[in-house]
């Protein structure tokens, strides 16, 4: 091949090679297919009750007539809605609409119903009258306008919400979100992800007591940063028992707060934090690593741990009047501990057996 021809071919080849990625670009530019602004949701869906409320609103909007206890209803999009009644346990069904295979079956329980042991409700359930769940029942999603009781060994796959109180039997798995407008009581062995209730009780314990706070506290000697409201420590810090701290504390090492101490501000530690028994913190608690919350501690503000958090017997997070958030990668809550507001275990949370 003569050199000019070779050069021309090479140049043409290079040109085509270079132009290749520009072809889809120019096509997209001339005939846009993906040109809408990214969606910014108006509501932040992290609220534990978000899906439950959306489901409830959807059902209520569709149920224009009062539901009958004798027949089935049909949603506009073709999903079948079956009715559960107190006696009609046979109405618990996982059948799908033959005319619309694959469509979800919504179960509607007009009155309070008892779900038999071992049942699997693979449809979303709306139960205005509430549910008494048997043992080893599997629920996909469940909304009740009143109380819910889940038997031991049950499993919730997506979310569960009660406008009333909710009791969760031992060794139940609460995957996804579980919420109640009144209270949530979890027995030992329950595993959970996201919880919300004005009062969340992790198991029961007779030994839980009111926190014992310092009556004759010592004042922590802070450096000149005290005036700015933050005391920063570059190394590990261990506060003695019954200390009183008026400012925030930021500790770049590990932080140990002595028994019975009172912290008026917020505290943060980069290398783990231990709050010994009876510590009271008025502000937030932030631990970049593991967080140990001792017996009968009281934490008023948000509690954040980027790793594991251990909540000992009798510890309380938030108050009924001041709900807060307790967030960690993994949460281990001992029987007798209580949280008010949101509890969010990013991986999983456990109600542990009591360890003496």
């Amino acid at each position, binding site marked *: 091949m003569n050199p000019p021809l070779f050069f021309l071919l090479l140049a043409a080849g290079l040109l085509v090679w270079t132009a290749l990625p520009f072809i889809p670009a120019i096509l997209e530019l001339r005939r846009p297919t993906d040109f809408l*602004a990214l969606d*910014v949701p108006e509501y932040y869906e992290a609220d534990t009750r978000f899906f439950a409320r959306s489901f409830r609103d959807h059902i209520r909007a569709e149920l224009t007539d009062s539901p009958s206890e004798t027949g089935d209803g049909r949603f506009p999009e073709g999903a079948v809605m079956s009715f559960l009644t107190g006696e009609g346990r046979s109405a618990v069904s996982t059948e799908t609409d033959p005319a619309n295979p694959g469509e979800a079956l919504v179960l509607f329980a007009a009155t309070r119903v008892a779900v038999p042991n071992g049942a699997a409700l693979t449809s979303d359930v709306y139960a205005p009258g509430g549910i008494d769940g048997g043992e080893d029942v599997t629920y996909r999603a469940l909304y009740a306008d009143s109380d819910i009781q889940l038997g031991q060994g049950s499993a919730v796959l997506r979310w569960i919400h009660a406008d009333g109180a909710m009791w969760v039997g031992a060794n139940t798995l609460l995957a996804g979100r579980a919420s109640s407008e009144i209270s949530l009581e979890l027995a030992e062995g329950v595993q959970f992800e996201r919880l919300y209730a004005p009062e969340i009780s992790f198991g029961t314990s007779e030994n839980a007591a009111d926190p014992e706070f310092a009556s004759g506290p010592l004042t922590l000697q802070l450096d000149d940063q005290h005036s700015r409201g933050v005391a920063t420590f570059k190394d590990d810090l261990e506060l003695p028992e019954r200390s009183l701290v008026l400012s925030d504390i930021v500790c770049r090492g590990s932080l140990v707060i002595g028994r019975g101490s009172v912290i008026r501000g917020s505290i943060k530690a980069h290398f783990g934090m231990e709050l010994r028994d009876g510590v009271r913190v008025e502000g937030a608690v*932030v631990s970049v690593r593991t967080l140990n919350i001792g017996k009968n501690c009281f934490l008023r*503000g948000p509690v*954040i741990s980027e790793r594991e958090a251990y909540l000992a017997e009798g510890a309380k997070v938030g108050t009924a009047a001041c709900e*807060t*958030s307790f967030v960690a990668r993994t949460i281990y809550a001992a029987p007798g501990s209580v949280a008010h507001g949101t509890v969010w275990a990013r991986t999983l949370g456990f109600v542990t057996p009591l360890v003496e």
Partner: protein
Amino acid sequence: MRRIAAGVRSIAAIGVMLVATAPIQAQSFERSHRRPPLLLPSPAFAPQLDTVRLQALDRSPQPATLVIRLMLLGLTIIVALISIYSIRHYVFAISRMFGRQRHPYSDIITAEWPPITVLIPAHNEELVIGEMLRLLLNADYPRDRLTIIPINDRSEDRTGEIIDSYAARYPGVVAPFHRSDAKGGKAAALQDAEKLVQTDIELVFDADYLPARGVLKLLVAPFFDPEVGAVMGRVIPINLSRNFLTRLQELERSGGYQVDQQARMNLALVPQYGGTVGGVRRRALAEIGGWKEESLAEDTDLTYRLLLHGHLTAYENRAECYEEVPEVWPERIRQIKRWSQGHNACLRHYLLPLLRSNMVGGMPRKIDGLLLLGVFALPPFTIIGWLLGLGLFYLGYIPIHGFVAILAVTAYSTLGNFAAFFQVAAAVRLDGSRARIRLLPLLLGGFLISTVAIVRSMLPRHLRPSRNTALIWDKTKRYRQAQE
């Protein structure tokens, strides 16, 4: 991580080879420049030429040799610098796609929310200020803990009138601040408004933004951490369907926030406060001396002053807010120049303090802080690198022979120029909007224009404005229709 380490080793090896071969290469010039000018060396013959050169080493350096050595040294430094930034882009993208994601504060759903003040600097914003106020008043933040201060900064349109109408309808919540005869600029407006702020947390929104209902809580949540001095949310262009330019900017914003900022949060580095859709703790602001009125990039300036004083900036990727991006190139170029001037002023002010500091987070945070400071200083180096490469080639000099040359060129052109594109691609994937990725090659055009704009902004006449020059608010044009 092994791949990253291997990449780092390869690039380091190339750098070392470039430096190590410098004397030999410099000598080779003497031989090559004596050849007929049109007879350019070819990489294919490089090994043989090198053999000849090695035999003809001249021990008395000539002026031309010195020039070549300097050019080579410059090119080596630039390649190394760009490689470092490239690795940074890759590390960020990989962290975002495969690493552990840190959103420590976004799960604070319920809390006793503190009182806050929202500041909205507005200079001739009649087209957008009404909508902004309406959306803020619709936020799910407790109304009794919310104060909104729209700052009517010497506006000559109906901005003041619209603000006053909202103040009349929402007394105790909307508290307007009118500036008529004062220093121009957003930072000066914010600094003046400080005297009205009575809460420890203040959020700042530009007047053209469209905050979602839950964004205030998301931005306030990080302040429960006593170490956090500032918070930044994510900005999303709303007018991307307008034209080619807006679509390119949407891609850049995606890369910048979805990957770059969040990766810095993941890796506990230096997320940047962006001046809007964000907030600052007043206790920390007072400690660092308030807003700097003369700063063109008060956001970057604030980030570094906070960092040097031991306060962290948190990035909240889920605190999303719409904004309008420039729809015409002159507007976009002015914006880039403004950012570049402001950012490079921060580089001059904070480079040495940062190097000397013993900051929280140690060396990784310091290195990231330094690299972030230098992002607007890099384009001139890129252009100089190209010129040096071309110059060396046309001087008849083969920088390094054969396979190594290919490696070096590959490292420079792909890592150097396209690593940021990889980051944008990762961001688009994370955003779940796949088809727009097709536009990625066209970012090359935007990249070149930005490079030229930044270099022009660094020309001497732009660097040191006269002391008598008054700061003007060179704000971005609005395109939306007025809504009250």
